[in-house]
Every structure is written in C-alpha cells, then in structure tokens.
C-alpha cells in the first residue's frame, strides 16, 4: 500500500488562516490522492482555529468527493482536540446545508407534489 506524507508546516508555513491558504493544502492532498493509496497529513499539534482554512483544505475533500473513498484514504495525524471538534462542526454544518439545498431543489422540480 503506497503512502504520501504531507507536513502542514512545510507546505503552508504559518499561512494557515485564509481560504487561499487552505486551497494550497487542498491541492497538495488532491495531487497525492492521485498517486498514493493513503495520504497522511501531519498537523503536529499545531492549533489552527480557522474555519476557513480547515473547510477549504480538509472538509472540502469529504464534501466534493473528487477522489474515491477519501474517508479511508486521508489520515489526519496530530490534529489538536479543538481542531478535531471544529472539523466535525464544519462537516456537520455543511452536510446540513446541502441537505437543505437538496430539499429546496426537489421542491422546485416537483411543484405538484405539494399542491392539490
């Protein structure tokens, strides 16, 4: 099984706040997913506390599912507990919003179902 190891500090340095910063890590993970079975991202207990960065760099992979089976192929190593919680909150929030959007679209596409 092939593995790619990505070190957050080497890739992003101290630029770990904005969506642009997150996009840099997102792209590196994406490239690695194309050539390796597992991608290990090392956070080294660096606290991020940026919703924009974590959403763009990490959560986006799970929402867009550009590569197959990302859930088992991306390993996040050394993420602080609060950042783990934040990742969970962002994911839940986005999933909830997408479900809401899908519901809205369904209603628009089948207007007769609700009116008699």
């Amino acid at each position, binding site marked *: 099984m092939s593995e790619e190891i990505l070190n957050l500090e080497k890739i992003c*340095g*101290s*630029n*770990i*706040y*904005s*969506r*642009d*910063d997150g996009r840099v890590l997102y792209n590196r993970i994406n490239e690695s997913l194309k050539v390796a079975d597992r991608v*290990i991202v090392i956070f080294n207990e660096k*606290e991020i*506390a*940026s*919703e*924009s*960065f974590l*959403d763009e760099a*990490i959560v986006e992979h*799970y*929402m867009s599912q550009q590569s197959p089976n990302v*859930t*088992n192929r*991306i*390993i*996040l*190593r*050394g*993420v602080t507990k*609060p950042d*783990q*919680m*934040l*990742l*969970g*909150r*962002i*994911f*839940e*929030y*986005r999933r909830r*919003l*997408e479900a*809401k*959007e899908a519901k809205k679209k369904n209603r628009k596409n089948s207007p007769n179902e609700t009116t008699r």
Partner: protein
Amino acid sequence: MPSVRKIVLPKLVNESWSNTLMKRLGQELDTDETVILDAERVCWISPCGTILLSSFALRRLMAKKAVQIILPSNTEPRQYIENSGLLKITRSTNMLDAIDVNNVQLRLLHKMEPLVPESLSEFVTHQARNVDDDEKYLLRMWITELLTNANDHAISADFGFWVCGIYNNSDHNIRICVADSGIGIKQSLVNAEKLPRNISDGEAIVKALEEGMTSRTGKTGGLGLKHISSYVKSHGGSMTILSGTGKVYLARKTKRVKMNHQRYQGTIVSVMFNTGLISSNGDAKPDKTPFTFE
C-alpha cells in the same frame, strides 16, 4: 496660500459619532484642496473611528491628494494616534510601507498576515482572564473568521483591510473593528446571484446573516457572520455591520436596520463585548464525523 478644508474632531470620537465622521470624510474625500484632520482636542477614538480616519487618509494619499493631521495635545491619545500609523502615513512618500505593522491597535493588512489573528487573539484572551481554554479557542476562531472575511473581500492588495482592537480598562469592554474596502456585502451577493439587484444594502446585510448565505458560487457557505453574531450576542456583546448605505446593529434582544446617507465603500464589522461576561457555554459537540484522526 493654498486653501484647506478642516475637519475638527470632538473630544470623544465614539461609535455614535462615527456616522457624522463618515459623512464629513465622505464630503472631503475627492476635494483637490488639502484636508486637515484636526484631532487637537481628541481624548479617545473608537476602533471604528480610527479605521475611518486611516482609510480616508490612505484613499486620499493613493489618489495623490494632500491630507494632514493635527495631533492631540493630550499625550495619551497623541501616542495612540502615532501608534496607529496616521502620522507616518502623512509624512511618508511611500505610505504603504510606512505604517507601523507591529502595533495591534491598528493594522493595515495587504494579505492575511499570520501574526495578526494570533496577536489579536492573544490581546483578547489576555484581557478575558476568567475563560477556559475551550472558550479561548472559540474567541480565537471568531476573530480569525472576522479577519479572513475581510481578507477575502478586500478589493485589492493595495487597499488591503484594516483591523483595530481596543480594551477599555474602566468598563472591561473589548472593541474590535475590521474593515475592508471591497464591493460591499450587497454587491458581492448580487454578483453571486444570491440576491436580487433591487435589494437595499441594509436588507442585504440581514440576508448575509442568514445561515448558509455565501458569496461563493456552487458551494455551501461557511459558518460565517451568522455564527459570529450568535457568539457575540450570547456573550452579552453587540455587533454593528456597515456596508454601502446599510447599517445593522445586533445585540441579544435587539436588531436595528438603518440606512445611512453617506455610503461607505466596503464593509466595516465592529464587535464589542464585555470580558467579565465571557464564560464557557458548552458548545454542542458534533456527532459522528468521517475523519480519520491518528
């Protein structure tokens, strides 16, 4: 002798005087005469006032129009204004490099500088001594979110965005103000086809506070302004958002939407909360998530 236009600032340039200040600055922004900001009597300036003055001076200088400042005679505000970089802006020929970047009270940023959210969070959490680590993390998160929002919406790296934070010892209030000079909330949501063109700036701000509202196309929104405002309100604070001609004030049981006569080019978010009222509120923990942590 060349003619000049003078704006005399009052003793207290507080939040409620910001409207008057914005109107006066707006009137003088494009004049070819030299504009003098007379701060001689000033004892205190709110973060919002500091940002308005600074962005006015910067806009004038970038348009190669003269602006001068008369510093306060009082030592404390004088140092405060010197620290804020206003004096350096007016004296320098290369004003963009001249701003004191080491001062947390006022910073002009041309991109998201990593040190800023850290130092601003430290500044806030240092004052809020009674809070635990979880709460400090949340504070840091909202501050970072405010800054990244401004960074994402700044119209250009030249104009960048402003951040200013002040702690008041006497009432234990922290005020943080972040301002960008972008196209404003309404226009960015109209461009993303999320809102109709005929909506007012005030209504657009209210819409921007709804869950999931984002200017990003084809994607769901981030936690955004809605969550920042919920956090501030639940901690007894208040938040004012000013964009274009719209102004929205939010507190725990209050929401006021107003229309300003003077347009502000960009968005200002001003947050105020009392450090004595911050306490851990046990944020809900997420359910099962798909991430593999090691």
